[in-house]
């Protein structure tokens, strides 16, 4: 299961990468694999205010519909509109081309609520048991 070293992770299998106060959010390999072929995503709008661990997007696959939760609080500044027509980018490239939204972080302290790559790896190992 691929995990990117310098990203942070949630228990719901979202990832976040931080650069200059902007958080890029997507779903991790584990979630992508569990969902199977992704067929639809409802993206947030630019300017939306999101709260940490509250819903930011909803996603559908050939198997199920589920919600995606924001790993941080902030304001959405950009969304990956390529996903409107090609949601399968999340299956093909969940950590790069399949990113979902970028938000301006409102509270850096919240990052301590997230898992590092090592912590997330241990978390996945526990799930597999």
């Amino acid at each position, binding site marked *: 299961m691929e995990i990117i070293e310098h990203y942070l992770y949630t228990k719901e299998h979202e990832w976040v990468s931080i650069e200059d106060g902007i958080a890029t959010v997507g779903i991790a390999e584990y979630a992508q694999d569990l969902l199977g*072929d992704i067929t639809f995503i409802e993206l947030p709008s630019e300017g939306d205010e999101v709260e940490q661990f509250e819903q930011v997007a909803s996603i559908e696959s*050939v198997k199920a519909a589920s919600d995606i939760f924001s790993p941080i609080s902030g304001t959405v500044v950009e969304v990956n509109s390529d996903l409107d027509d090609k*949601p399968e980018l999340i299956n093909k490239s969940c950590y790069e081309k399949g990113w979902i939204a970028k938000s301006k972080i409102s509270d850096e302290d919240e990052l301590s609520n997230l898992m590092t790559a090592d912590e997330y790896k241990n978390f996945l190992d526990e799930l597999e048991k």
Partner: protein
Amino acid sequence: MNNEQLQKTPLYNSHLALKAKMVSFGGWDMPVQYEGILAEYDQTRTSVAIFDISHMGEFIIEGDAIDSGLDRLVTMDIVSMPIQSCRYGAMLNNQGGVLDDLIVFRLEEKKWFLVVNAATTVKDGEHLQKHLTSQAKFIDVSAQTGKIDVQGPRSRDVLNGLVEGISRLDYFTFDFFDLLGENVLISRTGYTGELGYEIYYSWDKIETVWDELLKNDLVKPAGLGARDLLRLEVGYSLYGHELSEQRTPLETGLNRFVNFDKDFIGKEVLAQQQTEGVPYKIIGLTSESRRAPRLEQLIYNEAGEHIGEITSGGFSPYLQKGIGLGLVKASVTQKGDQIFFGNDKAKNLAEVTEKIFYKNGSLKN
């Protein structure tokens, strides 16, 4: 039901070797996908996919169509069936509800082969034995009979290399053929909307057929996930979804598989519905977006009033939109109407359409 109690098909180890994701279905541990549902869907629509359908039930009944009681047990006319033909229909309870949908094969003048759903095999066997007369002989061959569906526009080409004479089969007919040392029943039937065949083979030896088919580069395995999507695109009913003991075949759109010129169990209720109209009906619906209807979501009319619920739904790769089937109050909708699916909090726009979404299949090629 926990995993220890799930039944395994003779191809269970083959599925594990192919790294299939396994799920519980109708009491069986079955492959839902191998490579991925959409890839397996494409494989079936463009080349050939093979499906392990060994979980389904099979019965042999010996006896005259009428004197055995079999004709009274099913909604379709079987008396007029030519030998080596198949016919689809339903078995009903006294209230006209669908106990199961099934295919009847006429093996000989007085010998029949019935193929029923996996989850209902025991119930069906009991119902048949209860209503067959003393002039019928009933044999449950489910435990000895494995089944592989070979489906896709190239399926005839694939089987031509293995089965001499397969080209002579027309749609919904069958015959016995030599295949890898056994003389077996192969029918030109399926559940995908494509040209396809169903091979009935000895439970113990069916793995040799599976392995042989996979040697052909045109062939890949497909699981129940793709199978469900393929059948939904052609609007075929699934027992437990569109069909149930609570609904008659007239309410669930199986009208053309009911013959009112004969007697059958449940006929009184159906005859009454035919006169007075049905309270419910199954509709097709197409979402305005890629968002797909989901099982048990509610259906609303344009005014937002609750009129029914989704019985099957999914993303149609053919239309690149969400599609579904739903049970609604019969009087309130017609083709072309705008409706909504979802729940009281979130409703998604859709249009009432025909129940067939994919019409360009190779089914009758």
